[in-house]
C-alpha cells in the first residue's frame, strides 16, 4: 500500500502518521509538501495529519484547505483513493468541502487532551473493517475545535446513509454528555463521505498504535485500510516498533 502524508504549513502530526505507516505498518510512505501536487495513481492512502496548520488562524483547517496540494487531494478522492483526515486533517477536509459540516470550539472553550472512548457505529468501511460494530475502543483526543456541527439536513443524511462511523461514549459504550467533552453533535467522532472513501476523525489513532505508548486500539484502523487495499492480507504488527 502506497501511503502519502501531506505536510501542510504548520502540521504537527505529520511525523506521527509517517512513523506509523512506515515503522508499524511496514508500508512505503512519502511526505508531500503543501506547495506540491501529486498524481492520484501514485498512492492508495492519503493522510491529512493533525496539528495546527497555519496556527489554526481564521478557523482550524481553513487556510490549509486553500493550499496548492488540496487540488491533488480532491483529484485523488474523485479517483476513489482512500483519504484519512485526523484531527486538524478532519478540519481541513471539512473546510475543503470533502466532508460536510464544520467544527466549533469545544463546549468549554478549552483545548482538550485526554484518552476517550468511542463506539464503532459502522464497520463496513475501508477504515474500520477490523473492528466490530458496537465495539468500544480507547483513543486519544487533543484538540480545541472538536465540536462537530452540521445543519439538520446534513445530519439526517449522515444518519440515514450510515456515515457516522465513530461516536463518543463511556467505557460501556453508552452515549452520555460526560463522555462527549468536546460537545459534538450526536456525539460524532468520525464521519465518512457518501462514497465511503474519505474518513475524518477527531481522535488520533496514530497515537494509539504501539504497546510502549500504552494503547494499540488505533493500529487496527490502519490495518483495516491495508487489508482493504491489499485484500485479505492482515498482519498483526502492533508489537513491532
Amino acid at each position, binding site marked *: 500500500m502506497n501511503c502519502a502524508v501531506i505536510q501542510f504549513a*504548520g502540521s504537527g502530526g505529520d511525523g506521527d502518521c509517517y512513523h506509523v505507516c512506515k515503522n508499524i505498518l511496514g508500508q512505503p510512505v512519502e511526505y508531500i509538501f503543501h506547495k506540491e501536487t501529486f498524481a492520484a495513481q501514485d498512492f492508495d492512502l492519503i493522510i491529512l495529519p493533525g*496539528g*495546527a496548520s497555519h*496556527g489554526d488562524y481564521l478557523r482550524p483547517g481553513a487556510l490549509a484547505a486553500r493550499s496548492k496540494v488540496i487540488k491533488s487531494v480532491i483529484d485523488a478522492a474523485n479517483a476513489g483513493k482512500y483519504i484519512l483526515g485526523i484531527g486538524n486533517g478532519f478540519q481541513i477536509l471539512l473546510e475543503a468541502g470533502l466532508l460536510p459540516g464544520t467544527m466549533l470550539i469545544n463546549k468549554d472553550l*478549552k*483545548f482538550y*487532551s*485526554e484518552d476517550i472512548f468511542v463506539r464503532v457505529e459502522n464497520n463496513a468501511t475501508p477504515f474500520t473493517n477490523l473492528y466490530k460494530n458496537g465495539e468500544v475502543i480507547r483513543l486519544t483526543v487533543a484538540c480545541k475545535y472538536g465540536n462537530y456541527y452540521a445543519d439538520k439536513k446534513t445530519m439526517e443524511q449522515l444518519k440515514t446513509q450510515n456515515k457516522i462511523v465513530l461516536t463518543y461514549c463511556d467505557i460501556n459504550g453508552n452515549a452520555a454528555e460526560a463522555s462527549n467533552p468536546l460537545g459534538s453533535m450526536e456525539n460524532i467522532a468520525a464521519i465518512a463521505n457518501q462514497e465511503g472513501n474519505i474518513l475524518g476523525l477527531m481522535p488520533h489513532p*496514530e497515537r494509539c498504535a504501539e504497546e510502549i505508548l500504552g494503547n494499540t486500539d488505533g493500529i487496527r484502523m490502519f490495518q483495516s485500510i491495508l487489508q482493504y487495499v491489499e485484500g485479505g492480507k492482515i498482519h498483526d504488527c502492533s508489537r513491532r516498533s
Partner: protein
Amino acid sequence: MTAREEAKKLGLTDLEFDEILKILGREPNYLELSLYSVMWSEHCSYKNSKPVLKRFPTQGPQVLQGPGENAGIVDIGDNLAVAMKVESHNHPSAVDPYQGAATGAGGMIRDIFTMGARPIALLNSLRFGCLCDDRTQYLFEEAVAGIGDYGNAMGIPTVGGEVYFDDSYKENPLVNAMCVGIIKHDKIVRGKAAGVGNSVMVVGAATGRDGMHGASFASGELSDDNPDQGSPMQVGDPFKEKQLMEACLELLQNDWVVGVQDMGAAGVVSSTCETAARAGSGIELDVALVPQRDKDMKPHEIMISESQERMLVIVEKGHEDDVKKIFKKWDLDAVKFGTVTDDGMLRILENGKVVGEVPAASLAEGVPIVKRESKRPVYMDKLQIDFSKIPVTDDLNEVLFKLLDSPNIASKAIVYRQFDQTIGTNTVVAPGSDAAVIRIKGTKKGIAVSVDGNGYYCYLDPYEGGKQIVAEAARNLVVSGAKPLALTDGLNFGNPEKPEVYYQFEKCVDGISEVSKKLNIPVISGNVSFYNEGKFSAVYPTPIVGMVGVLDDVNKHCTMNFKKQGDLVVLLGENTDELGGSTYLQEVLNITAGPAPRLDIELEKKVQTCCLKAIELGLVNSAHDVVQGGLAVALAECCIAGNLGFSGEIETDLRPDTLLFGEGQSRIILSLPEENLSVLNKLAKEIGVKTSVLGFVKSGGLNIQVKQKEQVVGKIEVSTERIAEIWNNAIKRRIEK
C-alpha cells in the same frame, strides 16, 4: 539633557556610566546608551547573580555543553544528547498572562532549536496567588491557555510541570517554561560569530516596536507607573515559530552554518554582541536592512526591539542565497544585514552611515559586577515553634480530605488537559505520575523529565529548601525508573538590592549546589529572575529545578499507581519526627512554621539507589515519593491513580499526625508482589536503607491504623471514590463560578 542624565533615565547607574566612558574613551550617544542600558540590565547581564552562580557544579563526563550557551546539553549515550533550559516570563505574564506565558514558551523553544536540537517536550512551573481571588483566577486560566495554545500549535507535547498557589505570588505570578530537545552529538551548533567576512543574517519575523525595553522591564519591580508598559506587548505567533523551527533545523544540517542565536530579550543587540563576544570577533551591521514591521523605526528601536520569532544566523560568505532558499520554502524572510569583522567592535550603520560603535564584548560581558549585601532575615528565627503544644486532630479523615482538597496537592489535570501531551508519539508516561517518560525513537532508550520547586520550604529555610528541590526532582526521576543526569534551574527571587532577598538567593544556590554535587547531577543551564515583588513584599524565594534522566530500557519505566490487589506496600526510608513546613500545618491548622524538613544527602542517595535498582530488577509494580501532605497523601495518590485501595497498620513512636502528614524527606512508597519482598529487603540491606511493610493493596478504600505499642492511636478510613472525587475537583470547584 546630558548623557549622564540620559543614562540615569535609561536605568544605568553612575558607576556604570563611568565604566562606559572608560570603555569608549568618549561620551556615548543615545543609541549606544540604549544598548548598554538593555545589555547591562539584570535580565541580560546577570550582574547581581554571576558570582553566586559560579558556585554551581557544572562539570561531569556527561556534560557536552554547560552554562553559557542558549541551552545546556547532556549526553544520553548512542551518540544522542538532550538539550534543555528553563526560562522565566514573570513580569510580562503579570501584565498580560495569555501573551506573557505564550511568548515565554516561545522563547524557550527557540533556545533549544538554536542549538540544533529538535524540541520534543515542554514543561512549565507556575505560581499564583490564592485561587479565592478573582484576578488570580484570571491570571491562572489565561497563563495556562497561553502556554497551551503556543505549545499545542507548535506540535510539541507538554509533558510535565507544576503549579502552586500562595498569597505571596498574588501580585507577581511566576511563569517559568522549560523545553527539552534531542540532538546528535555531531550536530550541535553554537552561538558564535566567527570567520571574518562571514555574513550576518536576520531570519523570521519582521521587527516592530514590541516589548521595547522588555529586558529592563524584567529587571525592575512591577509598578503601576512603569513607563515600559506603554510599549506594545509582545504577541506570540506560534505558526511563524513552527515555520522558523523547521527552517532552522533544515538550515542547521549544513556545515556552512557558522552560528545561530535566538533573538530573545534585547533582540538584535544581544544576539549580535553575544555571538561576537563568544567568537572574539566583531560585527558591522546596517539597521536599515533589517525588515521592519512598523514605520519610521529609529536605529536604537531596531536594535533593542523584542519582536518574537526571529533568529540571528551567521553563515560562510557566499551561502546567503542558500539560506534564503531554505527560508523561502517555509515562507520566511532571510536578510543579510551585517558582516563578521576582526576588530571586536559592534559597528552600527544606518544606510551606510555609522551611527554607533562599541566593543561587542563590553556589551556582553563588561557590566560592572554588583556586590550585594546579604543578611539572614529575622523572620526565619521567629518561625520556629514547639510542636508538642499543638493538639493532635481527632478526625484524621477530615485532615486527609482537607489536604486532598488543597489546590497545591490536588490533581492538576484541569491544567494539563489543556496541553497536547502525546503529539510526537513518544510520550510513554504522560503528566499525572511523578515524572514524564519519553521514548527515543530508533533506540531502546527513554528519558524522564521533571520540574520541581518548593517556595515555602525555601522561605522557611533557603538552604534546606534549595537542597530539597534537587533531591525531589531526582527522586521523581528515580521512581520513574530513570537515572538522573543533569539539571537546569530557574531562580525566581525578589529585589536583590534587599539584603534579605540576596541572602535567600545565595543560600538557595548553595543548597542546590550541595546536592547537585553529591548526587552528581551538574547544572548545565538556567535563568535568573529578580525583582519579583508585590506592593508589600517579595514572592517566596522560588528556585525551580528541571531535571532529565535516562532509562537504558524504556520498557522498564515505572509509575506511581497501585496496580494489583494483594501487592505488598513497602516504605523505603524512614518516617521522621518533622512536622515543620508541612501543608498540614500551613493549610489545615493555619500555622506557618518551620523548620522545613531536613535532607540527609547520604540517606537520600541510598534511598534513590535502592529504588532505581529495584525498578531495574523488575521487583516493583509501582513507586511514588512522599512529599507534600506526607505519607497519607502519598498513599491516597497511589490509590486514586490506580483506582484501588490500601490497608495497613503502622507501628510508630511518632504522633499520628506527624506520621501521616509530616513531610520528612527521602521516603519512597513501593508496591510489589509478596514473593519479591525478600529480594528487595536483601538489596536494601546491602545498600543500607531501611524498609518497612506498610500494608497491602486492596480494592475499595484507604484504611490506615496508626499504632503505638499495639494500641490504635489514630486511623484513616475512607473510600477511594470519595477521596478521588475531592482530589479531582478541588481546583475546578474553585474556579467555576
